[in-house]
């Protein structure tokens, strides 16, 4: 399994990387939505994108819209991981095609629980 972590903060990417690599996943990283789109255009096919909302160049909401507009990326699971916690923002992101929404600050357990709800842990949980 592979996660693409999209956040302009290196610290946040590091926190998320430690959580998902702890599950045995591999990771790729992007500092904004455009950089992430470039990786997808270049052939990267992650199982999951973890997406911040507020980023320079291209924000996470726009990234979700762009990914969902392309049939070829329909199998990529999109999870917003953001400080944006207004109800209207959450509704917008889900309506645009995000599958899940996690509000910062989060715990590792909260991320793992969401991955389980998305059915992404079936073959990953250590025996």
């Amino acid at each position, binding site marked *: 399994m592979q996660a693409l972590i999209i956040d302009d903060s*290196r610290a946040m990417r590091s926190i998320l990387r430690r959580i998902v690599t702890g599950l045995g996943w591999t990771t790729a990283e992007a500092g904004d939505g455009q950089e992430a789109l470039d990786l997808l255009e270049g052939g990267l096919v992650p199982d999951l994108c973890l997406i911040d909302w507020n980023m320079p160049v291209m924000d996470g909401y726009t990234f979700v819209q762009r990914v969902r507009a392309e049939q070829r990326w329909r199998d990529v699971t999109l999870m917003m991981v953001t400080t944006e916690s207004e109800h*209207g923002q959450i509704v917008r992101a889900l309506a645009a095609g995000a599958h899940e929404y996690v509000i910062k600050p989060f715990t590792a357990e909260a991320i793992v629980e969401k991955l389980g709800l998305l059915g992404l842990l079936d073959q990953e949980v250590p025996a």
Partner: protein
Amino acid sequence: MSTLAPSALDLEALVTDMWASFVGSPELLLPAGPPADDVALWSATVTVTGEWRGMVSVDLAEAAVLGVTRGMLGFGEDEEPDAASCTDAVGELVNVVGGNVKSLMPGPSSLSLPVVSRGAVELPSEMTEASVLHLDWCGAPVRVRVLTAHSS
């Protein structure tokens, strides 16, 4: 324009929560007095604009900045974070605090990208301090402030 602001208790709850989740230190944040004038602080701010308009600032002594950066980036105790790493970690810290403050206030509103400065920042004259939280972490001062626009 609203001059509502979260209470110091609200700030303490969210800062403590954030510290536990991201910094990962067993050392507790403790209530404290204001930092001494001669303590050099890093300052990080985000601005909220919309239905509620305000600014959130987090000020930390250098020792706290290094500790936060080590924790968030997963550095070892013997690793010395560089300035770019410190700026990144402190920026994300104020981003999370600011985002959570925004969620406590009337919306809709939007959050700016963080601005981080090694040294005190001049706060806008149209803003007034509405809430302040003074903490101590491992002997280093940490201050969280919420500023709101003057009511018109």
